[in-house]
Each structure stands twice: as structure tokens, then as C-alpha cells.
């Protein structure tokens, strides 16, 4: 009697005999056909009888053989292992042998598996986080100390300044950033002047747009926007460059040769940026004033001569310097954030991405924080 499961089946058909079940397999048993075979196997009713399998008409790759192995392991009648009429698929023996032996290379340490809501694990996790946080602060202090030491040591030995490297970084972080910095400074000055003109016109105080633009650009916006652009451009570049060198073991190689990575990787970037950022700020200030002047000319019909007159009245002797003095400090923060994140890259390219992002976020955060502190400081100093 033919089993009812045979209809429509492609890969396996069962025939029920009084004392046993004969299973005829056919077709291509592979990973690609596995989703089609599984329901056919699941629909078979074996009823605990002894199983005889004829696999001669089927072709097995490793995945297909695994499926058969898995099925037989789950459905063998107790005390009566399934038997093959004809030769069993060779891959089946390979699988049985593979799964029976221990792996050649045991992992050196098992990954700890902890329950999700285990109070002990929660306390442990909190402790680990605290320790990790403390170690990070320690590492940061050590990094700052090493950088200060390297700066101090280099200042007595001019040869250690590595002028060629510094020049390269001035070029990379400064010269190539001029177009984007100039464009942004111009647009921001235009926006500022436009907004100011709209509001001040209500009071008939159009002329004070000039004060707004000049003081705003020189004191705050010129340097702050430049620093933020540079943090995005160069802070990320520093982290990615140094991080890739870490992954490539170049930093280890430097140390092995006896060269201080801080001295050759961090110092030139630091000094390069400290030189480049103030220069970029001067350019941003200049272009910002040009943008403000142009807008006042076209929108308010103010002659350029009047703009210049008003501007020189608005600017105190300190206005420009209050802005520019912040640039080296911002440069220092951006370079330190970028290089520190780069040096912390370890192991994988995923770490590199994470720390590059972190470098930019930290650089921008510290720049804005420092700017706020400067604002308070200058207010207290009455400038």
C-alpha cells in the first residue's frame, strides 16, 4: 500500500510495509532546496517503525546530508537505527564523524554568558563601568601628560619639531580648508546681516546692522564656525589616520624602533593646527566682513564708505583679538580630541569608525564649551 504522502512529493516518498517503512529519496538535496524538503519530511508519518532508506536516486551536498542526518537523529525508532538499502550518502558519514569528534582548536576562553536580569551581574556591570570610566580618565591624564612632556622636550631641541611634517599638516588642515571656510563665513555674515536688518529696521536703527555684523563675526562667529568646520574635517582625519596606523601595527612599529608616537604623530598635528586655525580665522573674519558689507550695500543701499566708517567706530581695539585669541585654544582641543581617539583604536575597523565619530563629537563639544568659558571670562574682564 502506498502512503498518501507520496502525492506531489519530489524529494521523499514513504511506503508502509507491515513491519517497516521504506523511505525513497530522490532529487537534489542541497541548501537551496532545503526549504522545500523540510515540509515534505515533516509531513511523513513514521509511527515508530523501523526505517529503511533508499538514497540511490538522490544527490546530496553537505547541507542536504545534514538535513537527512538531522531528521534521522530526531526520528529514529528506539532500538532500531535506520538502515540504508544500497550505499548511504558519503557526506552523511562525514557529518557524523565531524560532529562526533571534538573541535581541534578550542577557543582559549569561553565567552561569559550571564542571565539578563541577574542582580549580581547588574552590580558587576556597574562596577565594571565605573572602573572602565576611571581607567579612561587615567588614560586621558596620561595622554595629556605625555603630550605636555613631548612639547616640553621638543622645545629645547628644535630638531624635534619636524618642520616638514608640521608644514604638511598646516597645508592639509589649513590651506585646503580655505574655500569651504570662506564660503561658510560669507554665508553666515550675509544671514546675520539680513536677520539683523529686518529686526533693526523696525526701530529705524538700520545702521546698527554694521555693529552687529562686525562685532558678531570678529568676536564669535568667525572663529567658532571655523573651529567647527575644522573639527569636522581635520579632527576626523586625525583620528582616522592614526587609527588606521594602529590597526596596521604602524604605531607599535614606531615604538619598537624607539620613536615616541606622541612626538611624531601627535605633536606635528597639534602644532600644525595651532598654526593653521588662527590663519583660517583671519580669512573667515575678512570674508565675513566683506559679506556683511556687500549685503548692507545691496539690501540697505548703504555706501561702502559709510559701512567702513561705521565698522571702524563699532570695533574696539580688542574686538579682533578677543576672537583670534580663542583660535589656538580651539585648535589644541580639536587636535587633542582627534589624536587621542585615534590612538585608542584597537582591534577592528568598527572601532575605527566609532572613535572617528567620537573625535568629531568631542572636538565640537569642547570647542563650544571653551567658547562659553571664554564668554564668561571676557565679560568678567569687561572686554
Amino acid at each position, binding site marked *: 500500500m502506498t502512503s498518501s504522502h507520496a502525492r506531489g512529493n519530489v524529494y521523499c516518498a514513504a511506503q508502509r510495509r507491515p513491519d517497516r517503512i521504506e523511505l525513497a529519496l530522490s532529487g537534489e538535496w*542541497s*541548501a*537551496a532546496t*532545503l*526549504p522545500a524538503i*523540510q515540509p515534505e519530511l515533516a509531513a511523513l508519518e513514521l509511527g515508530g517503525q523501523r526505517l529503511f532508506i533508499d538514497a540511490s536516486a538522490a544527490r546530496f*551536498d*553537505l*547541507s542536504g546530508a*545534514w*538535513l537527512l542526518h*538531522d531528521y534521522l537523529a530526531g526520528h529514529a525508532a528506539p532500538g532500531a537505527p535506520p538502515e540504508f538499502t544500497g550505499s548511504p550518502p*558519503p*557526506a552523511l558519514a*562525514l*557529518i557524523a564523524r*565531524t*560532529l562526533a569528534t*571534538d*573541535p*581541534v*582548536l*578550542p*577557543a*582559549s576562553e*569561553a*565567552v561569559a554568558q550571564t542571565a539578563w536580569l541577574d542582580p549580581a551581574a547588574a552590580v558587576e556591570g556597574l562596577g565594571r563601568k565605573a572602573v572602565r570610566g576611571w581607567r579612561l580618565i587615567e588614560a586621558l591624564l596620561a595622554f595629556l601628560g605625555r603630550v605636555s612632556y613631548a612639547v616640553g622636550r621638543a622645545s629645547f631641541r628644535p630638531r624635534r619639531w619636524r618642520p616638514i611634517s608640521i608644514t604638511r599638516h598646516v597645508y592639509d588642515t589649513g590651506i585646503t580648508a580655505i574655500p569651504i571656510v570662506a564660503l561658510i563665513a560669507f554665508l553666515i555674515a550675509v544671514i546675520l546681516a539680513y536677520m539683523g536688518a529686518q529686526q533693526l529696521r523696525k526701530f529705524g536703527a538700520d545702521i546698527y546692522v554694521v555693529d552687529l555684523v562686525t562685532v558678531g563675526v570678529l568676536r564669535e562667529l568667525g572663529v567658532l564656525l571655523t573651529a567647527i568646520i575644522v573639527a569636522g574635517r581635520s579632527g576626523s582625519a586625525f583620528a582616522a589616520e592614526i587609527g588606521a596606523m594602529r590597526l596596521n601595527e604602524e604605531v607599535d612599529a614606531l615604538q619598537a624602533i624607539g620613536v615616541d608616537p606622541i612626538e611624531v604623530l601627535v605633536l606635528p598635528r597639534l602644532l600644525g593646527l595651532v598654526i593653521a586655525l588662527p590663519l583660517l580665522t583671519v580669512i573667515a573674519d575678512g570674508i565675513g566682513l566683506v559679506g556683511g558689507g556687500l549685503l548692507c550695500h545691496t539690501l540697505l543701499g548703504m555706501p561702502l564708505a559709510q559701512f567702513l566708517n561705521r565698522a571702524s567706530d563699532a570695533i574696539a581695539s580688542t574686538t579682533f583679538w578677543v576672537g583670534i585669541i580663542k583660535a589656538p585654544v580651539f585648535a589644541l582641543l580639536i587636535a587633542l580630541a582627534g589624536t587621542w581617539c585615534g590612538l585608542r583604536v584597537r*582591534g*577592528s*575597523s*568598527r572601532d575605527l569608525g566609532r572613535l572617528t565619530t567620537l573625535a568629531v563629537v568631542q572636538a565640537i563639544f569642547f570647542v563650544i564649551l571653551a567658547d562659553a568659558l571664554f564668554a564668561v571670562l571676557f565679560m568678567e574682564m569687561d572686554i
Partner: protein
Amino acid sequence: MGAVVEVRGLVNRFGRQTVHRDLDMSVAEGEVFGIVGGSGSGKSVLLRTILGLQQPSAGTVLLGGRDITRMGVAELRAVKAGYGVTFQQGALFSSLTVLQNVQLPMIEHLQLPARALDELALLKLRLVGLGADAARKYPAQLSGGMVKRAALARALALDPQLLFLDEPTSGLDPIGAQAFDELVVYLQRELQLTVVMITHDLDTLFGTCTRVGVLVDGKMVTDTLQGIVHNPQPWIHAYFQGQRAQHREVSHGA
């Protein structure tokens, strides 16, 4: 037995530098074919061309009798599912665990239920000698030998009949390299694979390969192991008869 890999009249040029000039190569089913050559002789370029990662300047590359240099994207994708590759540095995806690395080709090309996906990936890992605890680790946590084995497991993910190995034993200690050679031979026999490998390791060459192709002057000289060691060509002679090859007996090869 048909040729599984057949390269005819291959030319690869980069600017004014010609890497391959009219190169022919043929690998029959069930062979373990070793590709040898000096640094810069174009071994990696040849492999990349055969894999369809790079379009040759001229010539044809037949995989299973079909020319992959004139294939569309969809066709080439199907061909790529039919072979397995391991790269020199392992090239395991560092953001995925070892298990996920093995599962990635299966997820891309097949539609498997979750349990089959896990069990099959674990089976492939067991096959190359890695246990379940290694499966949960990330590539950065593995030793060099384990990376090579995990890469081999990923290459076997889709049950290919054809396997390409780029410097499979480079960076391994002699014991690890020997074990890896034995693993390749074992898998080749059990799974009836055709293996094409680039190698610099003479032990690997003599321990696993049935035929050798030597890249010299942009062409390939192909011979059996016994034949190639007596080839009079100066570079080949220096390679197989040099100091480092002296202690070797040909008899245990092939």
C-alpha cells in the same frame, strides 16, 4: 573530466606595465592546483581575474565552461555563489562574530530557516575544527590559525565544488600550517572539491598539490610536481632547487 577553471589568452595591463601576456591555465575537476610565482609576478591579479573581481585587458576566463568576462551582474552573482574563496589575511568581517561570518553568504544567497542556518554554520565550523565557543567570538579575538580556519568555513558556507585559497598558510607556524594543509587535503577528498591555491610555502605545495603552475614572464608553466622540479627555466630552477628546497624529497608529493 572537464576543465573546471580554464583561462585562455589572458592579458592584464596596468598603464605601460604588462602583468600577464597571453596566459593559459586549465584546472581539471578534483585537482589541487598550486599557483607559484615571485613577488609582483601577478598571482593575485590572476586570482582576482578568475574570481571575476577584475576585468582582464584581453582573454577569456571560463568557470564550469562559461565565460565570466562577458557576463552580466546577475549571472556573475550566480557564478560567485558556486565557488568559495579565502583571502590572504582572512578578510573576516570584523563587526560580525565568526558564526555570523559563516552565515552571511547563506543569508545572501539562500532562504533558510533560522535553526538550519545556525546548525549548518556550526557544522561548517566543526568541519574546519572550530568549536561552538569560537563561533561566538569576533575575528579580533581569534588567533592567526583560527582566522584561517574561520575563513575556510565561510568559503564552504554554500557547499561549493570549487575552492580558491590565497596564501592559506602564510603567517602560520609550521605545526599550524601542516595541520591546515592536512585539513585542506581532507576536505578536498571528502567533499570532492577542486582547489586552486596561491602559495609560497613549499611544504604546502608538496603536501597538497597535484599540479603546479608557475608564473614566469607573464605566462604560466604548468606541470606535475615531479616534472616542475626538473624544469630548466632559471627562475623555476632557482625556486625548486634553491637552498630552501634542498632538503625536500619529491617522492612524497603528488
